[in-house]
């Protein structure tokens, strides 16, 4: 867990206190406010609210109000202009501001002005979403190490107690009955009992593997959720079960002459 630095916590607390204070001043029974300077100025209440909540300095607000009043006066007519200027808010002369007057300053004696505000995200748009990630070391490597240990232990112990078969020397003149392929091909051998060898041994497995290989190009459904893939999942399950059942029958239920037998009657005819 990431620790939040102390100074950030403190800053957050201050900001929260300030927001609380602003809320109480807006609801307005108590006249105490954070910005005494803006409330004492001769603006109406709506503007003082916006001034206290916004970060625009008080003197800039005053100036914009003066400018607005001046433009309103000029729109009203040149004759009433002098009368309006008397009633408008007195603007302090620029020389009284902290800005030093010089030949290079702007209209109000300012040496800088705000051209534009670039909002975050308008130019630097971060497209990658943050992901919940963990370090491979130790999290993944430890899991992998444990699983390799488990599998090694399993293979080792199994090999200590169960020996690999070694029957008598290969003899071309003595065909064992039944003769069986390795277990993963027993499904195919089982098919041989039902179809012509070309169909059972070449066509069915060939077409099956080809379709399996092309699965991502056939299945165009973009969803990975099981509830959206009922057809694909059913088809694959039937396919896997088809082979599993054939391999089981070929392995355990086929006796001499590859005839169907029950292993509990006739015994096992199966070597790994």
């Amino acid at each position, binding site marked *: 867990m990431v620790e939040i630095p102390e100074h950030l916590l403190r800053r957050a607390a201050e900001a929260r206190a300030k927001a609380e204070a602003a809320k109480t001043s807006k609801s307005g029974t108590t006249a105490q406010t954070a910005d005494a300077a803006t409330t004492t100025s001769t603006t109406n209440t709506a503007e003082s609210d916006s001034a206290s909540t916004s970060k625009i300095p008080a003197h800039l607000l005053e100036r914009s109000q003066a400018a607005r009043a001046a433009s309103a006066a000029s729109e009203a007519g040149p004759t009433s202009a002098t009368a309006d200027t008397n009633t408008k808010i007195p603007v302090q002369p620029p020389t009284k501001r902290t800005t030093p007057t010089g030949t290079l300053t702007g209209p109000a004696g300012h040496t800088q002005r705000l051209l534009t505000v670039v909002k975050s995200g308008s130019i630097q748009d971060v497209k990658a979403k943050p992901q919940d990630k963990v*370090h*491979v070391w130790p999290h993944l490597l430890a899991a992998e190490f444990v699983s*390799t240990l488990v599998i090694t232990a399993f293979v080792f112990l199994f090999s200590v107690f169960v020996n690999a078969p070694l029957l008598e020397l290969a003899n071309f003149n003595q065909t064992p009955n039944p003769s069986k392929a*390795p277990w*993963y091909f027993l499904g195919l051998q089982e098919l041989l009992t039902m179809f012509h060898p070309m169909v059972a*041994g070449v066509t069915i497995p060939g077409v099956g593997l080809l379709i399996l290989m092309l699965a991502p190009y056939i299945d165009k459904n973009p969803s990975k959720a099981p509830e959206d893939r009922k057809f694909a999942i059913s088809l694959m399950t039937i396919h896997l079960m088809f082979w599993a059942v054939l391999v089981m029958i070929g392995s355990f239920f086929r006796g001499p002459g590859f005839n169907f037998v029950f292993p509990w009657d006739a015994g096992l005819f199966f070597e*790994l």
Partner: protein
Amino acid sequence: MKSPIHSLPEHLRTISDRVKKSQAWTSIFRPGSIFRPGYTDNPRNRSYVIMNSVLYHLHPVKVKRHAVKVSYTLCLGGLSFFLFILLTVTGIFLMFFYRPTAAQAWDDIYALQTSVTFGLLVRNMHRWAAHLMVLSVFLHMARVFYHGAYKPPREFNWVIGVILLKLTLLLSFTGYLLPWDQLALWAVTVGTNMMGYTPVFGDQVRFVLLGGVEIGTDTLLRWYVLHVLMLPFVIVIFMAIHFWRVRKDGGISGPL
């Protein structure tokens, strides 16, 4: 001068310090290793562990959190690879005691079991690990299908995966003949008879695979070379592509 009894631990410490600062030591134990002086467990060193290891850098430095969640299907693909390594190691051991000729193969296996130290154990491990690898590759494929992990962008890696499944079956099947016992001979007879029914090229396919019109000592040599050299060589290339594509396609697939 201090007395030798007092200075002995200090002496050892200076030697250890000098060894740990030597170029040989720092070349073997790269940054991130716990054997480097001043090691601390921090994100930087955790990243270095992966980046500075030829084996570990198959992995990215970081993975999504769900990828390390323990589940029934965790590591099936990785275990298939591990079983391949286990089979390579035990297989090399077996190669020292085996000659692929009809006259000697069975006797060599028999001698391996009866008079070679740990011979029986290593042969058993090779046999059972081979069956287990077929099973784990198959289960890995089923897991990938049920998670829909073959969907874009991973379509091509699924194709590579099916090729790897076929190569695994072929590796297992070619190894099946090598003990040259009744089980091997007749299992392979059944298998190759099926291949003989390939349309158009059936007889040629069977002739090339058997090195003759019927199984014999040439078949044994042929399948031995396929089993210990050619198919491992091919499967390693496809495995490299498979692992590389896993990284290129954005790590293992996300949760459902």
